[in-house]
């Protein structure tokens, strides 16, 4: 069994079989991660370049750890585009990468389309670690893995993605991935945070957090970008918390269990109250461990693809 595509740019149009293969492979690696010696020689001799044009310590560490566990050689390149002239760093870097002949590139960039561009100019396998508001496929895969691990299935589940959908790169990947495996997806957030015409992707849009809690099996709660939102897309963080935040009172009103995911880092008192963030419904730390397993699976499947 192997993946149908050479790259992982997003989950749009990725067949169900590929998604299931990645999730199943991650299960194997999840077991490896429980062993005393957590390293396998699978990608020995392969060179992977982590190209982070935008800071994201969590995602980068997760990828690096996955690469180390698979015994790959790693080159790290991190820069922030804000500090240099826009565009210049990118082209210089890309030229260097072309010359370096790496086997795989993991790329993160604030502009949508950069991973796609790399597929046109490089021979390497390209893995998107988040581009603009476009896609972040490994995050969605680890979310799906974590749901399946906890609830035993994905098909038929009702999943609600809560928060700033418009500025999220996780939302689209989750929508495509969950729909591919037969889950139903709802979006919940203030209208200013819902991008136009997203209903056309086959999702329901609601603005009532209590409904989100009572009518869904899973809530995938997105992080609110504090600097960006307050005063523009929402009046204040306090108002957001009062009308869209997940609190234990809200959860207790609901007489069935609901699973809570969060890609981290959490803004306590904004999208989740502190009790909820530490409470029994969330699986946020599992998500972190599962993230390494998912990234191992993706790297392994692409790196050993015939």
């Amino acid at each position, binding site marked *: 069994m192997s993946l149908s595509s050479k790259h992982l740019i997003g989950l749009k149009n990725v067949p169900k079989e590929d998604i299931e293969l990645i999730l199943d492979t991650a299960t194997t690696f999840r077991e490896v991660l429980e062993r005393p010696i957590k390293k396998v020689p699978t990608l020995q001799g392969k060179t992977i370049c982590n190209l982070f044009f935008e800071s994201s310590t969590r995602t980068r560490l997760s990828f690096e750890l996955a690469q180390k566990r698979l015994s790959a050689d790693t080159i790290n390149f991190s820069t922030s585009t804000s500090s240099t002239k826009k565009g210049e760093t990118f082209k210089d870097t890309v030229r260097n990468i072309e010359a370096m002949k790496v086997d795989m590139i993991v790329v993160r960039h604030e*502009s*949508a389309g*950069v991973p796609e561009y790399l597929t046109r100019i490089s021979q390497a396998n390209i893995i998107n670690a988040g581009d603009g*508001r476009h896609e972040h496929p490994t995050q969605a895969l680890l979310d799906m893995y974590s749901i399946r691990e906890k609830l035993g299935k994905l098909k038929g589940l009702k999943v609600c993605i809560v928060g700033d959908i418009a500025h999220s790169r996780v939302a689209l990947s989750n929508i495509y991935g969950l729909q591919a495996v037969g889950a139903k997806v709802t979006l919940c957030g203030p209208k200013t945070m819902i991008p*136009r015409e997203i209903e056309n*992707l086959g999702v329901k849009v609601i603005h009532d957090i209590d409904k989100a809690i009572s009518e869904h099996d899973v809530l995938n709660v997105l992080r609110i970008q504090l600097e960006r939102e307050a005063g523009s897309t929402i009046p204040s963080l306090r108002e957001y918390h009062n009308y869209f935040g997940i609190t234990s009172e809200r959860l207790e009103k609901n007489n069935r269990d609901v699973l809570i995911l969060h890609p981290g880092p959490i803004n306590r008192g904004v999208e989740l109250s502190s009790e909820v963030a530490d409470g029994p419904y969330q699986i946020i730390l599992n998500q972190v461990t599962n993230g390494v397993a998912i990234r191992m699976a993706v790297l392994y499947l692409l790196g050993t693809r015939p």
Partner: protein
Amino acid sequence: MELPLEWQYYIYLELDHNGSEMKSILKSMRIIDPQLKIDRVTDILIENGMIKVIDDINENDFPDTNIYDFSNCICAPGFFDMHVHLREPGREDEETVITGSNSAAAGGFTGVACMPNTTPAIDSAEVINLIKEKSSKHLVDVFPIGAVSKGRNGEILAPISEMFSNGAVGFSDDGTAVKSAALLKNALEYTSMYNAPIIEHCEEESLADGAMNEGLVSTTLGLPSLPTVSEDLIVMRGILLAEYTGGRIHIAHISSKRSVELVREAKKKGINVTAEVTPHHFTLTDETLRTFDTNFKMSPPLRCREDVEAMIEGLKDGTIDCIASDHAPHSIEEKEMEFIYAPNGIIGLETQLGISLSELYHKKHLTLEELINKFAVNPRRILNLDIPKLEVGSAANLTIFDANKIWTVDKSKFKSKSKNTPFDKRLLTGKSVAVINNEQIYFDGEFKKI
């Protein structure tokens, strides 16, 4: 090795034409002049750049003449593109007055109006004169558009009277809309003294922070987007202020369906508003951005199918007066960048006639006569310029094109210095064959005296 066209042109200028009589016969063309209601197949004799005979000519009666066989071609009053960026002064690496004019000639145009967003901006008599000087000997007439505000910064009015008296034919802060309603009101009052239009790039700045059109495609591509309403608001502002002041507003590169409706209603009310559309806005939709190719990034952005259809409707019913390329050269280095950072704009002088013939004439949206009005008559009327006529005694200012020639766009063959086109490798039906103006002909890749 073929010389760059810019050099060829200078070599041509150096040649001594020794003042001898030049006579040329253009044979067997279908000549169409919508103004004079002419549409027939005949020949034209040109002597020292002037039309001497329009009739069937036996070339044996005229020894020592150059014969140009243009059978199967259409001959019309020279075409005019009222919205191009020639990048001079400031970005001569991307385009110059000469290379831009060469590109215009190759695309079938005998005149262009160039936008003032250069460095420095065209906001003084000096810059107007610099451009006029550079283009003075060229086949293609270049008419500068002056900036509305000094430095295009939206603060104070640029010296409009001074620019107008030195040859500016319209005023614009293109690249952006005129910054404030107050400044636009004053600019409309002031330019109405000269009956010159204000050419508005319609984009409400506070809504324009995006890299593509807002809609389903931007949602799925995760690119920051700007809505059509950002255009509609500025179109409406321009219309209302034109109505109030009696000034003239020209809507540059209209792209939204609602804006076309606004212009249509305003024209019905008798308000002084005109509009142009680019070939890309009546041909392409935002779906083309799915590959993240920055050659599809421009301002205003490509819109949806219903907007494209509204452009064609607007062209058909006369709401949209003319077609203009918004020729915007950018270097490859600049365009080959992350999508959100890449500059807006594409070149269009050498593709727009082919696209218009393919998409409008061959698809039966416009007749040839209507198309000639959009390319030759209306843009000059908007800018108060003389409209060339196919009549004896007039200076020959002609575009000769083959409406049925099938060809494939090859950007490496462009005369423009830049290559940023979304139409490379596109199969088109209809192409310019020759242009004649200022006692010169551009034919077969060369300029010659006529």
